Each structure stands twice: as structure tokens, then as C-alpha cells.
């Protein structure tokens, strides 16, 4: 005889539950799904409740993760790479900027939704590559959709492919370097107090991220040196070649700086006090590095880019397109600075929390004595 189904086994149908689980952003999936389960009475009620809840949690997650600065740093290069500044006009003479704006907007929408559905943790390089792939795919999808209705407003295949490649690199490097914005997340434990275990985990994760970032930046620096080395050899005129040499020198300086000042020191995990102090010192070093990003990261590249722009303008006998590229480089530099300043402020918040924890530890040690 088969056992009677227990009343405790009242649960949503697996397929419905799986679909709803997929639709809830991961950052709030655990507790929202748990709450919906707790209120479950029938499949219909479950679906209705979930459908009424979903728009709010998705919107809330978009609001929490929407980062205009980070978004601009993905959309601006996409617009430039798809020829928004220096592209050739189409056969119908339609505006060049509009043809580049379509894939850039599609990319923006895809990245906003993607950020809302990100796991709230620092992205790995693999994740950044997948996100960049999604960004390019959405840009291409917009071209496909436009090709059916308004083919005159689509990019020529060669420009689209070149733009897609450049966009992939730009989105990848940005997303690998800058994590998505998340809501305020403190180092509080379940008891509501600052937990040393949380701090240890955080310290190890931070050390790993700094190592990854340095490796990535050094690789990018080497690629810049190689790329501009070709320009140094095949540049259109002497001014452009000098510009390439200056960019290479700037990239070398950045690599030198990363190797000497930005190396992650291992954080000793022997005692609480040692670990906390070392982690706080490491955070202070990285905070200062982010605060001074203009002087050691952006300014060293600027003379080279300016001279190269001049060289290109002389070679083309048309100052406007290279000048627009220079302006977009400057704008990108300003955005990079802002992003790093914000990163420095976040590190400062964490430093403040650690100082509180160190003081708590000190008081407890005094009490024990």
C-alpha cells in the first residue's frame, strides 16, 4: 500500500518554482523565494503572488545596481567603436551618430538588466568575458531587428564587426575591473555584530582581486606597448610616431607603478589583531592608489594621445575626426577618475568599519585582563 502524502509536502510544482526562481534576481532570490514558499497554498495563488512580487523586486534590483558612471563607460566606447564619431555616412546619407547609437542603446539596456541579475560578488574574468559577449550580442541583435524594418539605419557588416570587437574589449576590461554596484552590504554577522570571520573572508577575497587586477592591467599595458609599437614603425608621419612612442612610455610607467606600489601584500591570518591591522593597511594603500589615479594612470598617457592626435590630423588634413577621438579619450579619463574616486570612498567605508572592529577587539582584550 502506498503511503498517504503528508500535509508537510504541500509545495509549489517543480516546473513553476524553477521558472519563478529563474526570474527572481539572484541577489534577493533566496529570501524572496523562501517567503513565497512559506505563503504557498495552491499553485494558482503561488503564481499570482510571484507575478505581483516580481516587478517590484526586479525594479528594486535595477535601482540598486544602476550605475550611470559605469554604464557610460561601457556605452561611450561602444558608440565610438561603432563609428559614431568618425564613421562613414551610409548610402542614403543618414546621420552617422544615429547608426552607432542604436547598438550602443541596445548594449546599455542589456547591461542594465544584466547588472540586476548579477550575483552580488566581484566578477571573475570569465564572467566579464560572458557579459562582454552578451553586450556585443545585444548590439548585433539590434542590427538584425533594424535590418528588417529600416535597413538604411544599420551599420555596414565590416564596421559592425570591427565595432563589435572593440566594444567587446572595452566592456570586458571595464566589467573585469569595476564590480557592479550593489546595495549597502556591511560586514555584520547573523547576530548583528561585526564578525571577524566575515572580515577574514573579505580580506582573502580582496587580496585575490588585487592580484587579478594587477595581472590584467599589466597584460593590457603590454598589449598597448605592442600595438603602439606597430604604430611607431608604420606611423603616417614623424609626429604620429613620436605620439606612439610617448604612449608606449606612459604604458611602461603604469606597469612600473603597478609593480612597485600596487602589489597586494599577503594578509597574515594568525591572530585577529594582526589580520585586522594588516587588512586595514592594505585597504589604505589601495585607497590612496585609487585616489591618485589621475597622476599615475591617466596623465602619463595623455601627452602621447595628444601628439598622436596631432599627427593623425596632419596626415588626414582633417582635424575634426582625430580631435573627436581625443575628446572622447578625455571624457573617458574623467569617467575613469570618477569611478576610482568612488572606489576609494567605498574602501574608506570599509576602513571605518575595521577601525570599529579593532576598537571592539581592544576593549574585549582589556576586559579579559
Amino acid at each position, binding site marked *: 500500500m502506498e503511503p498517504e502524502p503528508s500535509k508537510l509536502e504541500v*509545495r509549489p510544482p517543480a516546473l513553476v*518554482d524553477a521558472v519563478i526562481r529563474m526570474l527572481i534576481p539572484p541577489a*534577493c532570490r*533566496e*529570501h*524572496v*523565494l*523562501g*517567503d513565497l*514558499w*512559506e*505563503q504557498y497554498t495552491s499553485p494558482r495563488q503561488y503564481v499570482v*503572488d510571484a507575478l*505581483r*512580487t*516580481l*516587478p*517590484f*523586486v526586479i*525594479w*528594486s*534590483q535595477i*535601482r*540598486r545596481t544602476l550605475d550611470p558612471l559605469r554604464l557610460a563607460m561601457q556605452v561611450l566606447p561602444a558608440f565610438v567603436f561603432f563609428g559614431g564619431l568618425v564613421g562613414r555616412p551610409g548610402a542614403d546619407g543618414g546621420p552617422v551618430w544615429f547608426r552607432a547609437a542604436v547598438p550602443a542603446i541596445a548594449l546599455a539596456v542589456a547591461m542594465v538588466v544584466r547588472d540586476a541579475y548579477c550575483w552580488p560578488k566581484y566578477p571573475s574574468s570569465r564572467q566579464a568575458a560572458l557579459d562582454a559577449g552578451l553586450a556585443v550580442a545585444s548590439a548585433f541583435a539590434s542590427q538584425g531587428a533594424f535590418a528588417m524594418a529600416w535597413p538604411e539605419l544599420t551599420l555596414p557588416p565590416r564596421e559592425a564587426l570591427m565595432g563589435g570587437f572593440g566594444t567587446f574589449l572595452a566592456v570586458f576590461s571595464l566589467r573585469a575591473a569595476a564590480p557592479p554596484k550593489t*546595495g*549597502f552590504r*556591511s560586514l*555584520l*554577522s*547573523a547576530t*548583528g555584530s561585526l564578525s571577524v570571520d566575515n572580515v577574514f573572508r573579505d580580506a582573502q577575497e580582496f587580496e585575490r582581486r588585487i592580484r587579478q587586477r594587477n595581472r590584467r592591467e599589466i597584460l593590457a599595458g603590454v598589449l598597448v606597448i605592442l600595438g603602439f609599437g606597430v604604430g611607431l614603425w608604420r606611423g603616417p608621419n614623424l609626429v604620429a610616431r613620436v605620439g606612439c612612442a610617448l604612449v608606449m612610455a606612459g604604458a611602461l610607467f603604469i606597469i612600473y607603478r603597478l609593480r612597485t606600489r600596487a602589489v597586494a601584500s599577503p594578509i597574515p591570518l594568525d591572530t585577529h589583531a594582526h589580520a585586522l591591522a594588516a587588512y586595514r593597511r592594505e585597504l589604505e594603500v589601495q585607497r590612496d592608489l585609487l585616489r591618485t589615479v589621475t597622476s599615475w594612470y591617466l596623465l602619463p598617457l595623455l601627452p602621447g594621445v595628444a601628439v598622436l592626435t596631432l599627427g593623425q590630423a596632419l596626415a588626414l588634413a582633417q582635424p575634426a575626426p582625430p580631435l573627436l577621438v581625443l575628446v572622447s579619450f578625455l571624457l573617458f579619463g574623467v569617467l575613469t577618475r570618477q569611478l576610482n574616486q568612488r572606489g576609494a570612498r567605498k574602501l574608506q567605508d570599509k576602513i571605518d568599519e575595521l577601525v570599529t572592529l579593532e576598537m571592539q577587539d581592544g576593549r574585549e582584550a582589556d576586559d579579559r585582563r
Partner: protein
Amino acid sequence: MSKPPSIGQFEQLVMTAILSLGENAYGVTIHAQVEKLAQPKSVSLGAVYATLDRLEDKRLIVSWLSDPTPARGGRSKRHYRLEQLGERALHESALTARRICDAVERIWGVKAWNQNPRSWKSARQH
């Protein structure tokens, strides 16, 4: 000491619910408590989540995940409690609400609380 940010009416309801629930403040219980406080209006669970996120971003409340429970399909609860800044913000808005109540009572009298204001107002006009 930083000045607490001003909070809206729905935020006040959610924070009051968290305060009254104490240790047991999580999504389902907060929603039930807010529904009680907001009567006769009904409130959706999603609106409560969105407000909880906003309050957490303003650092008025803090949250953490509990251990998973079988009754919830092995999923954790997200518990909430008021931060010091949140307690001050709620206190300030409660004082404002009390001043509003006092002013209304002075003008309309005590019976204003027992009747629908619209019907009471039209009765006065007659």
C-alpha cells in the same frame, strides 16, 4: 552625529513593523504587520521588499540571512533590524505625526478619530 534622512509614510510603516516584530522581523512577518498598520489599504509583498531595499541603502536598517528552514523549501530568511540612524529617523517622523494628530484634534475634536473625515466634514457643513 549625522542628521537622519526624512522618510515617507510607507517607509514609516515598514520601519514600525520591524520595530514591533523585534527578532522575528523578516519578509512575511513584516508584510503581515504592515498590512495591519495600513488598514484598510492592502499592501503587496513586492512593495515591502522594494522599501526594505531602499531603507537598507539609506542605512536605516540592516539585514542578514538566517539558517535555511525546511518549511521554506530549505531557504533562508532575511532578517531586518533598525539601525541607530533608523531609530532616530522613525522617532522624528513619529513626533511629526503626533504634532499632526494634535493639530487635527484641536480643530476637529476627538470625534474626528471615530468617524470617516469626509462624512464628518459634510455633517458639520449641514
